């Protein structure tokens, strides 16, 4: 039943995206492809943070792994698109096993620090081994729309379809995972590790598994990024990206997959819009270049003040879809161990 509901929602979303992609300009198609990348990356992260209660400031590094895997597999082995996506996700997942094994022993700020290290260190591999990774310049990736669509078919529309379709599949899979035994176990571990362990759950294994899922999503997102921007270079995977992913997850609403969409929209559209406004008002380029970063900050602060549970949490409250308990004043202002209003799971102990 849950599966049917999720698939139904995905089909409706697919129709909406199809209509948007056909009726909007090529540049909007390009932005749809961009948003889809963030949706996948943030959805993976929101599972990690919201459900399993771990934080990662290093998911940008997993995106880099997926993106470079895509470029290298295409360049050296000539793999087609449909094989590149799962392969890149799998390679990033393997990296996630290593990171997750270390992460399972760490908590809170120590975990944040360790994953941040990953985000800082990994992209510089590209410049350390320019023969393999192409240095600062990066590697080219080339994806063309199938010939069956005709020569006049806008390539960006094809990219929008590929990325948005992939994102919808990922969302359906994650939504089912969250409602499954594994998802419930993650929430149990998040809310009280000792209680979960006493109940027979293998805490360390579950924490690592959450890391793997999140890394695989990031790797897939990296692969999608490589495909739609037709290149990979270290400049795409700075620490700022990892922070932006966390910001998007928090703004959208932690633990909520719909929130991943809101977060992605904010991350992609706000900087473009703000830069346009800034330059059209004649601000100097050095000032205009920094305005999107400032706008981020403002949006983050505003959302946290108005909707402590993110945009999705705010929408739920606005439309009265929320379980009353979660709107009460006793909700802890702690994004890492906050109860999830969306879950069917009955919590105990944390509040």
């Amino acid at each position, binding site marked *: 039943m849950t599966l049917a509901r999720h698939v139904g929602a995905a089909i409706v979303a697919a129709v909406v995206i199809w209509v948007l992609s056909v009726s909007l300009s090529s540049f909007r198609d390009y932005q749809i492809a961009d948003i889809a990348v963030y949706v996948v990356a943030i959805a993976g992260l929101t599972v990690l943070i919201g459900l399993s209660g771990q934080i990662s400031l290093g998911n940008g590094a997993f995106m880099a792994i997926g993106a470079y895997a895509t470029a290298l597999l295409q360049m050296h082995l000539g793999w087609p698109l449909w094989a590149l996506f799962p392969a890149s996700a799998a390679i990033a997942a393997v990296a996630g096993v290593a990171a997750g094994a270390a992460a399972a022993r760490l908590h809170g700020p120590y975990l944040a620090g360790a994953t941040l290290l990953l985000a800082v260190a990994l992209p510089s591999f590209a410049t350390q081994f*320019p023969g393999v990774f192409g240095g600062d310049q990066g590697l*080219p990736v080339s994806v063309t729309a199938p010939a069956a669509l005709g020569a006049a078919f806008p390539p960006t529309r094809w990219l929008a379809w590929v990325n948005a379709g992939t994102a919808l599949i990922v969302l359906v899979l994650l939504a089912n995972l969250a409602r499954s035994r594994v998802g419930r176990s993650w929430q149990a571990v998040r809310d009280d590790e000792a209680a979960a362990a006493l109940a027979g759950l293998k805490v360390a294994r579950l924490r690592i598994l959450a890391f793997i899922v999140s890394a695989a999503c990031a790797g897939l997102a990296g692969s999608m990024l490589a495909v739609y921007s037709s290149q990979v*270079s270290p400049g*795409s995977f700075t620490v700022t990206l990892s922070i932006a992913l966390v910001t998007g997850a928090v703004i959208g609403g932690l633990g909520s997959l719909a929130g991943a969409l809101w977060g992605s929209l904010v991350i992609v559209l706000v900087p473009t819009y703000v830069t346009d406004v800034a330059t059209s008002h004649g601000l100097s380029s050095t000032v205009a*270049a920094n305005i999107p970063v400032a706008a981020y900050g403002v949006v983050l602060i505003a959302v946290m003040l108005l909707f402590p549970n993110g945009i999705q949490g705010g929408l739920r409250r606005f439309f009265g879809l929320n379980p009353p308990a979660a709107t009460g004043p006793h909700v802890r202002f702690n994004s890492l161990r906050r109860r999830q209003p969306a879950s069917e799971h009955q919590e105990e102990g944390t509040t």
Partner: protein
Amino acid sequence: MNRSHRVGTPAIVAAAAAVAMIAAGCGGSSGSSSSSGAATASAPGITAHQILIGSHQPLTGPAAPGYSEIAPAANAYFQYVNAHGGIYGRHIKYTYLDDGYDPSKTVSDVHQLILQDNVYAIFDGLGTPTHLAAVSFINSSKVPDVFVASGCDCWNNPSKYPQTFGWQLDYIREGKILGAYIKQHFAGKNIGYFYQNDEFGQDGVKGLDYEIPHSQVVSRQTYVPTNVNVGPAVAALKASGAQVVVSFAIPAFNALFKLTSEKLGWTNPTIVASNVGTDPLTLGGLLQAYAKQAGATVNGNQLTNGIITDGYLPTLGNTGNSWIALFKKVHDTYDTKAPFDGNVLYGMAVGYTFVQAMMKAGKNPTRADLVKAINAGLPQGPAVAPYAYSSSNHAGVTGAYIGKIMNGALVQQGPVYVTDATPTGAVTAYTGSEQAAPGSGMP
């Protein structure tokens, strides 16, 4: 029979009418792209009153010092053209976005320019690693990609990138001209290379290696623009016993090289550097700024003194030159915020070349018309040597003179040399004459 005739006649008439309409349609469209008639919206980005072009520029980031002046300078020349009648009455509108010298940002900038802003052409997109990330997309969109602000030989690839044209002296030719000078003047000395580890530095080294005997090169050190720690590279060059250091680096890294070598007590290597990184005003300013950050005071002009480089545009000090006079006049009216330096000269000269090409493309040009016009060759402009443009060659300026920095200014040494980008093509003195700027300042 009768009946079939009656049916047949209208069909033939209709077919004839259709052919006539198609012929008229063809005539109409070819007529509109020729010189007669009113100005029309002949291509994306072109209206009856305006030509919209776009670019990606390092307005911030590691390449911004110096290079951020280029686009405003080109725009200043366009303002001058707009004030003097424009191109067949149309004004040029130039939108340049900041990419911070980051290839991933270049990709999104160029998508925005082509898909959202609908520019007629990408003009003077700056940087080798940055433009390489976007060049495939620009070409597959069939948008003219004119006068890339980079000397990479990769722009000269008409079969793969038919829309793309280089402009400045390419790095292979530049490497050959500098290499021939080094071979002649520093025979038997130890040579060390210091270069940016991408196609920019690698092309330059290719040209150098065509001329300098390999046995003379004792060390090859590289840097990447995102890592400002050049200490290990400089120390390795010093340890190798290099007496002459040849640099293919952007201004910021020439400044870092010079300051680091001073700090290591290595004050005497002769520096021969690509034109790309040696605008004296930019380099001197960077040296003083970086030294100040480190708590020291240096004299920029003193540190740049004696650097050997090359130039493909007239020297700024040559105030009698008609191009310098023209661009100084444009600068003093439209670009007063920037100093009148090599970057400003570059921006105006490439702006002039664009106007040259647009005039040649016709009154109501399509995108293909601009490419066709450049493929047919452009007359020599502000540069000291002719362009290589043809349908089989998309390289720009073909030669340069050797120059020396003295008291913060570039001084020409000897004649202009021209060469090609092949391993064996000779470096020879240019025998043709330089062109004077037109009195109107318009091509």
